């Protein structure tokens, strides 16, 4: 090792962020993004390196599913399952835009087959099942396919005695699958209930936004609920609440901080510290090696 190499290695170590920055995303050079919150212009590469948190104001941007997984799990530990599960069109739902069209354009845009990615992984060495929802896929709404993948996640975690860590975002039950979507709330809640009986931990990370039928089912049945700063989380969306009540909404209504104030989440955790915090909770709630 030359002196310069040695220096470089030292520099690399010194500048490795404590919580791990996650892998660098493939972003073309020269792409700039305007922060929704502080309106400053951020270089895409910088945003990807900062886990998609605005370096100026701390605003948390949405994270694509696979990037989120890389931020959360031990490097290279993901083994995806249920990747072939995708929506069909049981209601033959055709309105302004057909459901089939919505799904196929979501697939193209996101590179995903469904709004949730599920898999086995380890976090801090603990065997877990992860599920990560991607809002860019039909608003990460829950139809039959998402419901099935989440249900399998709970079932596999039971049979393999794994912890569960879900990073959740959702616009709610998927309207275009009608009652089949609504019933996924009961189905995932039932699977979560069976898991709960096993003495294994379920950690939910609620991200922006998490609303409707997902909030009102498996998402809030977790043992530990964290929310990302500024995330909107609730049952009815703020516009609906405003319409129904004709009242001015309180400041920060349904924000993660609002939920914390009202005793609904365990803590608000910034993305940079999330992996470490989740790992620490798993240390408390899981026995070494996953045996319970």
């Amino acid at each position: 090792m030359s002196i310069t190499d040695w220096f470089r290695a030292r520099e690399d170590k010194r500048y490795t962020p404590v919580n791990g920055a996650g892998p660098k995303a493939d972003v073309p050079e020269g792409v700039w993004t305007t922060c929704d919150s502080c309106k400053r212009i951020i270089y895409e590469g910088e945003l990807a390196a900062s886990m998609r948190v605005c370096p100026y104001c701390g605003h948390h941007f949405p994270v694509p599913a696979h990037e989120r997984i890389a931020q959360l799990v031990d490097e290279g530990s993901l083994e995806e399952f249920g990747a072939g599960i995708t929506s069909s069109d049981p209601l033959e739902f055709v309105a302004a835009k057909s459901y089939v069209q919505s799904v196929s354009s979501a697939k193209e845009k996101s590179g995903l087959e469904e709004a949730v990615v599920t898999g086995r992984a380890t976090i801090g060495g603990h065997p877990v099942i992860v599920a990560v929802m991607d809002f860019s896929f039909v608003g990460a709404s829950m139809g039959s396919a998402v419901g099935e993948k989440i249900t399998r996640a709970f079932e596999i975690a039971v049979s393999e005695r794994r912890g569960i860590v879900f990073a959740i975002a959702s616009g709610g039950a998927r309207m275009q699958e009608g009652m089949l979507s609504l019933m996924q709330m009961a189905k995932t809640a039932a699977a979560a209930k069976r898991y709960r009986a096993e003495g294994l931990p379920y950690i939910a990370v609620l991200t922006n936004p998490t609303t409707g039928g997902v909030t009102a089912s498996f998402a809030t049945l977790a043992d530990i609920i964290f929310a990302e700063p500024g995330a909107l989380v609730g049952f009815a969306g703020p516009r609906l609440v405003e319409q129904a009540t004709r009242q001015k909404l309180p400041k920060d209504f349904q924000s993660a901080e609002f939920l914390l104030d009202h005793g609904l989440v365990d803590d608000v955790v910034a993305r940079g510290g999330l992996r470490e915090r989740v790992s620490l909770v798993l240390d408390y709630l899981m026995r070494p090696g996953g045996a319970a």
Partner: protein
Amino acid sequence: MEFERPLFELEDKLDQLKRMDVAVNPEIAAEVEDLEQQLEQLRKETYEQIGPWERVQISRHPERPKTQDYVATLFTDVVELHGDRLFGDDEAILAALATMLGRRVVVLGHRKGKTTKENVARNFGSPHPEGYRKAMRAMRLAERFGLPVVAFLDTAGAYPGIEAEQRGQAWAIAESLSLLADLPVPVVVVGIGEGGSGGALAIGFGDRLIMLENAYYSVISPEMCAMILHKEASRAAEAAGCLRLTAADLIDFGIADEIVGEPLEGAHVDPEPVIAAVGERIRAALDALGEVDPQTLTQKRYERLRAIGVFEEGAG
């Protein structure tokens, strides 16, 4: 209801005609006869072509039999349970101990009012979290004392209010789903009117789902669906069709088990036989489920839920 307006207009005309003096205007008799024929034809057409949107309107009819009508008729020795022991009592949800022909049960139901005053007190049947928490308290009683649960669904949805959100509407609904999922007693659910989304589902699934012919059950209201799709609530009729929310649709999807028929115009024109028929179906369901041991019961309930959903699965 909107779709009945032409019918009512014709009835009005006929009434006026009948009040006129036949001795003075002898041609009236023929006219009356003609109108009566027209009316009969129109009545047939109106109710024969009844679609999902018309059913939604019938399900919301102010005079439609409500949870309290079923409870008053089908049950005796009713002991109502108030409050969630945490925050307050939500009148939009009924919880009670009650007896049905010698069988002791826990009754739950969304409770709409019939008068404006009642409806204000009951928030038009849209519960707050404390309503669901009261229902959960009653479910736990049912579990501890081995009482079956009978639940009546009739809500436009859980209330989308500021305080409801502050007190954890979503959390309350989720916990209620969780509790119902493996409650080790028979759970019989009857859709009697509106089945509005998560707010209905919170007490709305179990071992049997009996639907009235004009009751609906939907992931979203037709009006809100129309707003999302077309930015106008007035296209709700169209949306009601897209959503597949009728009792018959629910049978097709394997979600509901049976349908109780109603008079052509809806249950409100002749409630007694409808209520009696519902009672008959509840009794039959409780008889059948009473034979099943709790472990098999909850296993079957899980399998029933597990089977709901339509998706594709390729390699991956």
